[in-house]
């Protein structure tokens, strides 16, 4: 009887130590939910969600303070992805936060620019290049289209321009029913019989 109790206790202790060691040794840093939400958000940093950037909005969602439908640049796809991640029902975009629009980039009318640096300070991703009393310009590839530079400009010389893809980065569109490209050969076909 005593032998059984001792041996079971000993084994239990041994396994307990083993498990404890393994838990420390093989500890996996779990990806906190805020990071996962932040990864889905489009990182435009536009503030249309009423938070001062994508990260704060992600934190608000994680804390249950904000709904998942406050991000217009993310659009329907973004809301769906968030709903999938959090295991909740998808919902339509909140119109109070704005509408989903085609991605645009800011373009400065360089003749009208007075070099006041206000837009440079307003840009959340440092995509505007310029110095005091020098002409400013937008680095197109870095611009997220957040619109934050528009109200900052005192002479109204910034426009948002939608960039339509040229042939180099053109994408195939969703197929429409009853248009088939390959069925041009009539009934002149025979199935392959080489197997």
């Amino acid at each position, binding site marked *: 009887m005593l032998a059984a109790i001792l041996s079971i206790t000993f084994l239990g202790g041994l396994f307990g130590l083993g498990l404890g060691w393994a838990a420390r040794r093989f500890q996996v840093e779990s990806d906190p939910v805020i990071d996962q939400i932040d990864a889905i958000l489009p990182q435009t940093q536009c503030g249309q969600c009423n938070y001062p950037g994508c990260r704060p909005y992600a934190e608000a969602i994680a804390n249950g303070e904000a709904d998942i439908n406050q991000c217009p640049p993310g659009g329907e796809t973004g809301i769906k992805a968030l709903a999938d991640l959090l295991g909740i029902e998808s919902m339509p975009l909140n119109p109070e936060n704005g509408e989903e629009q085609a991605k645009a980039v800011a373009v400065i009318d360089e003749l009208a620019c007075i070099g006041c640096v206000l837009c440079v300070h307003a840009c959340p991703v440092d*995509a505007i290049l310029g110095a005091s009393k020098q002409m400013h310009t937008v680095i197109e590839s870095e611009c997220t289209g957040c619109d934050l530079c528009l109200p900052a400009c005192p002479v109204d010389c910034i426009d948002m321009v939608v960039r339509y893809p040229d042939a180099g980065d053109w994408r195939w569109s969703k197929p429409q029913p009853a248009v088939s490209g390959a069925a041009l050969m009539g009934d002149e076909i025979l199935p392959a019989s*080489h197997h």
Partner: protein
Amino acid sequence: MHIDQAEQARNVAEQLHHFHGGLRLHHNKKISCETPVASTPLPEHFFVPLLQQYGKEAEATVVVGQKILKGDEIGCFAHLGSGCVHAPSSGVVKAVVRRPISHPSGTDGWCIVIEPDGLDQWKELESLTDWPDADPALLRQKIRNSGIVGLGGAVFPTAFKTDEAIKRGIHTLILNGSECEPYISCDEMLMREQPDSIILGARILQQAVGATRTVIVIEEQMGAANHALKQAVKSTGDNDIEIVRVTAIYPEGGEKQLIQVLTGLEVPAGGRPSNLGLLCQNVATASAVAQAVVEGKPLIDRIITITGNGITRPRNLVARIGTPIADLVERCGGYTKDAARLVLGGPMMGYALNSDDNPVIKAANCILALTQLDIQPPQAEMPCIRCGECARVCPAVLLPQQLDWLIRNEQWIDAEDCGLFDCIECGCCDFVCPSHIPLVEWFRFGKSELRSLAVERNQAKTAKHRHEARDARLLRIKQERRQRMKEKKRAFKDDAEKQKKLTEAISRARARQGRNE
């Protein structure tokens, strides 16, 4: 790679194998093979698109009004280590405009408009007749500078492939002459009429990439081409160039399918033939390489098949890049009365053009004019009945019905996992589908979506990174300012204390003075 696999890859064409699926199609090649390849007169204007290859548009390097000679560089690319676009004839640059560029999108692109002066005068050509003694790196440099791209239709820069071949190590060069799409015969005619040029190109490429052997693959029924190539090989006395005839099953001309036929091995998903120690080039590309290296001529023309029941006298033409397609059709006696649709490429993988104003591009191997009879009226799409025919014919061993379902439901990641990017868009599944589902269109759409998702993800990552960097900078500036303020305050305080001590001392002194008086 397994050692026995590496061994198997070396035994190219020792024994022929099969790839999965495929279709036997009617060739319809004979109509364009009956007359020899002819040249095309100079058009009134050339419209040379700056988008000629896989990737982005080239940058124009000429200005309006500039006089140029045949073969001058008129546009250059800044990436992929690739070469340039060259002037198809001597003349004057009239304009740089946006117009149709023979692209599946039908959108416009930048074109250089050249008015030929009729002299057709070459720029000074740097020929290299003693290429057998040349450094392989120099040969690759010449290939790069000549703007050569894969002329089989994928227009992947040849210099990129040869550079990669050097990095990975290549033992066998495969020249692809098995043009498996119906109607197209440009490669066959080239093999019949200029076999010496192809063999020369093969030997140059072999030296440029350090391959020890070349296999030229043609289709079983190309008797004349076989004969011509054999004669050409015999006259050079080489015994490391071999000609192999394969059964014509569509799409065995696809690079990966061809390699499977020749070696029995599959090119790994996402990999390239160089993974197996192979380099695959089109026969026309080899011929262009020969011209570029030996004569110093950049790629400014190609053989193109003008065919179909909508063309009066179908034939092959040597067409310069930038020639309007209408000029080529005219050279072939114009359209027949019942011509209804113009297709660039073959009937399986080609795309419809909305106008014959479109110019010849490096990728254009065939202009196909179809009549109303050829075109099936688009049949209504029916639901998938899961018959599995598409999976039976898929040469990439995919499950088209499954991919279609995933793409329609926007399950992008799953579609990618199911091998969407291994689809070669050959159209076999479309062809056999009893429900007339436009599967390839869905696959192209799916691939496009996945690519743009990746681009968006990358942009978001950059934006996030820049935003964080900005936040960190602003915080640093704020802290530095605070630090400065603190120091100033302390300095002020120190000053105040000093002042206090001073005034105390003064008042003490005054008090003492007062006492003394």
